[in-house]
């Protein structure tokens, strides 16, 4: 799909979120809620002892029913629908032919660890802070976006062998 058209579509989805739920989109937070609810199910005493975990369960709240958690489930479903409609459903490892599958998977895993960790620290990832933040003119959003893209360009030179 033409990038500008896709951008308009994404913008409309974001606007819908603002109009219906008074908030923007998000992704890394959803990962966190999933992890928190799993920890809560597997090891409740740990949750009670931890100041950080317990605030997700106070007042009977369940992290699994949080807006963000449901939203990321929707993202998976939406991607699946789009892939099915466009004939892009295919099990494969996407990588540069110059590196091995293992190397790609290791870097993908590490990338995930860093991204969600950083996202929780910055209270938003590219969707939650940068995209949604810019749409509400939040200074935090702009700063986070510049930090992400700026550092990615710097690291790009270091990791160029993985991609080009």
């Amino acid at each position, binding site marked *: 799909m033409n990038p500008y058209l896709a951008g308009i579509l994404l913008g409309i989805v974001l606007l819908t979120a603002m109009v219906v739920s008074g908030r923007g989109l998000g992704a890394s937070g959803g990962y966190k809620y999933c992890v928190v609810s799993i920890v809560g199910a597997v090891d409740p005493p740990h949750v009670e002892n931890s100041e950080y975990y317990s605030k997700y369960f106070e007042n009977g709240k369940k992290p699994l029913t949080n807006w963000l958690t449901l939203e990321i489930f929707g993202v998976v479903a939406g991607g699946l629908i789009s892939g099915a409609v466009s004939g892009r459903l295919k099990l494969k490892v996407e990588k*540069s032919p110059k590196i091995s599958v293992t190397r790609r998977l290791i870097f993908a895993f590490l990338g995930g660890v860093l991204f969600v960790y950083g996202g929780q620290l910055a209270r938003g990832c590219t969707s939650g802070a940068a995209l949604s933040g810019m749409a509400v003119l939040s200074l935090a959003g702009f700063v986070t976006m510049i930090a992400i893209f700026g550092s990615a360009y710097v690291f790009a030179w270091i990791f160029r062998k993985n991609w080009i």
Partner: protein
Amino acid sequence: MAPLSSYFAFPEWLNMLTAFLIGIGFGFALEQAGFSSSRKLAGMFYGYDTTVIKVFFTAAIVALIGSQFLSYFGLLNLNQVYVNEFYVTASIVGGVIMGAGFIMGGFCPGTGLCAMSIGKIDAMAFVAGGFAGAFLFTETYPLIEGMANARYKGPVKINESLGLSPGLFTLIMVAAAVAMFWIAELAEKKFARPEITNDLK
């Protein structure tokens, strides 16, 4: 009157349903943009594919302009829409870490999910890493708690800190974005790598 969830008390199931539906729209748009491909996303940083900047800024601007017009016509109360809170240190440090994660993983959390759903195994590794990263954060939070909460400035809006009206800032941002779209086109020509872009079709 909007946001609907502020003016009409949503029962929990409705809140969950709308989140799910919006997520579907989000995932659909991301995948349609081609963001389920890590090589396409990484291309932004090597110049051969600048789709990221086009989609990103178009989306932000559409939502920005749309919400301001809705606010002007009294249809949306912008005071009830969440504005990200600014913690100076955490925003910058987190952003730098995310930048590294972006280049190493080739995804962001949202695109990783929609890529995973169409069968990309590297995306599955990314998402698994994402859960590990979230777990790492929640377990080690007390160590970085001080830094994470340092220099809190509240939900500051960028136009307020620059002393501009929202509309004027929007205009400047649109002008900057349009300039970036043009530069992106030039970059794609200059840094073209047809061996990769043909693969991505």
